[in-house]
């Protein structure tokens, strides 16, 4: 396989506890630390390991969004990707639109494999990979916790509700990653320097000539209804008594 495309979404760092704005218009994100979506970082790590085994020649990282996404692409290049593409737009894209943009890049780059996270930790949609696979008319292996390549096919272990499902898919294909697939490497300082010399191409979204629409309008953002803090019991005896009193045993 000549090339792997890895999608990196810029999201709020997973350590940040985000809150809803007081006026309910959205999330309070000013000055918040941003990062590569952790699932996408795992996707990139998997691509790097595939390349280190000599099973692919080039890794292209792509991001869709504002100019700031360059930071995440630079991090991806520092981790070891060869080249980056930013499809620049100030408009937030719904998953179907994101999949259409990625499909346009897939047509241009003709990768053997597209790797991306199973979901982004901001919108928690879990859709883009599946939609890309549909538009591309190629196989999808979602929630991957093990990926084994052999020539023109891949055996993927998928984490499903019932356990581990093993499927075999023909390449080219889309694989979305689960947390247990691997542990991404840390970026070293010399690699950050080297990454500055790598190519980062910026493609304005309009140049792709796609017809994208919005189907959904968010009319309200609100905090979840909190659970009331309960009681602390002194010992096991009181725990059993409390459960009995509440008719729970």
């Amino acid at each position: 396989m000549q090339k792997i495309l890895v999608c990196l979404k810029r999201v709020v760092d997973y350590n940040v506890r985000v809150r809803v704005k007081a006026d309910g218009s959205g999330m309070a994100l000013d000055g918040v630390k941003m990062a590569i979506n952790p699932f996408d970082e795992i996707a990139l790590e998997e691509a790097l390991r595939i390349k280190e085994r000599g099973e692919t020649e080039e890794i292209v990282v792509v991001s869709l969004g504002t100019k700031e996404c360059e930071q995440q692409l630079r991090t991806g290049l520092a981790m070891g990707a060869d080249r980056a593409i930013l499809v620049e737009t100030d408009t937030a894209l719904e998953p179907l639109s994101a999949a259409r943009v990625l499909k346009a890049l897939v047509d241009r780059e003709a990768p053997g494999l597209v790797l991306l996270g199973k979901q982004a930790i901001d919108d928690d949609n879990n859709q883009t990979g599946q939609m890309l696979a549909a538009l591309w008319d190629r196989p999808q292996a979602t929630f991957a916790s093990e990926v084994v390549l052999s020539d023109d096919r891949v055996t993927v272990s998928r984490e499903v509700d019932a356990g581990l499902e093993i499927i075999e898919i023909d390449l080219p294909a889309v694989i979305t990653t689960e947390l247990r697939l691997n542990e991404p490497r840390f970026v070293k300082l010399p690699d950050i320097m080297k990454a500055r010399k790598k190519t980062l191409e910026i493609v304005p979204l309009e140049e792709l000539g796609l017809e994208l629409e919005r189907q959904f309008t968010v009319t309200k953002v609100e905090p979840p209804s909190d659970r009331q803090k309960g009681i602390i019991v002194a010992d096991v005896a009181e725990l059993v008594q409390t459960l009995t009193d509440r008719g729970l045993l």
Partner: protein
Amino acid sequence: MARVLIVAEHDGEHLNLSTAICVSCAASFDNDGIDVAVLAADGQAVAADAARLEGVTTVLQIDHPANEASLAATWAPQIAALAADYSHVFGPSTTFGKDLMPRVAALMGVGQLSDIMSTADGRVFRRPIYAGNAIVTVETRDDRTVVATVRTASYTAVEETGSATIEKRSLDAELPTHTRFVALRSDTGSERPDLQTAARVVSGGRALGSADKFQMIYDLADRLGAAVGASRAAVDAGLVGNDLQVGQTGKIIAPELYFAVGISGAIQHLTGIKDAGTIVAINKDAEAPIFEIADIGLVADLFAALPELIDRLDS
């Protein structure tokens, strides 16, 4: 008027409870009918299950050898072909539905809504984002089919008091061969209640330390007739298999009684249990975030508390 198509989740023999939960969501707004599509190699038994769900109008039984495993690439073109007659197409927000429904939506050229928690009219929906740290209200365009996954913890399954018509259909959608099912490996014992639907769940965290010690969680679960769950940390540490994971990236559950033992309560775990009836937490760290949402907390060393609790339940 709305007509809703629900994609049945099943294992070839039995209907998964998630389907009855989707029917419950569909029945929560005005509609002209709720149909359930059963795709299987031989869907007779599952279709009979689906026909008993209260509120279902027609069960569409689509038998095909290729439908033996629920592969999204195989099922999606069939669902998309059926969908033309409907205003809404729903699946559960289980790994099955999350895998399948976006592929269905994209084939239809429409977007998809994930994890719907409630809807008043089938056009405006509420759903969680940021691991449940916020709830958004989303309005969809009137001229587009609504394809969505239903958050299973947000609805109660409908009763099995219905008697829908079963209609056999054959579809001539072209089915791909590029995706092949190989095997399913499961850790879950079959005698134990199903984690996703159990009324009681006992979950253990990394504090258990080893797979051997995790046996205490099973012992407690046995006393309570409960299903067993685990935190992500416990799964990562290899104490139990991934199918037991509760939380944002595992199962979102809503049992009547939930025991969190040796689980500190990372936000990702709390996301998975917010809808539980009563949450009991046992943890030696009094500052653990789990106590912020627990209804009953016990600050104690689990290695002392668990055996005592099991003893007391026995006597």
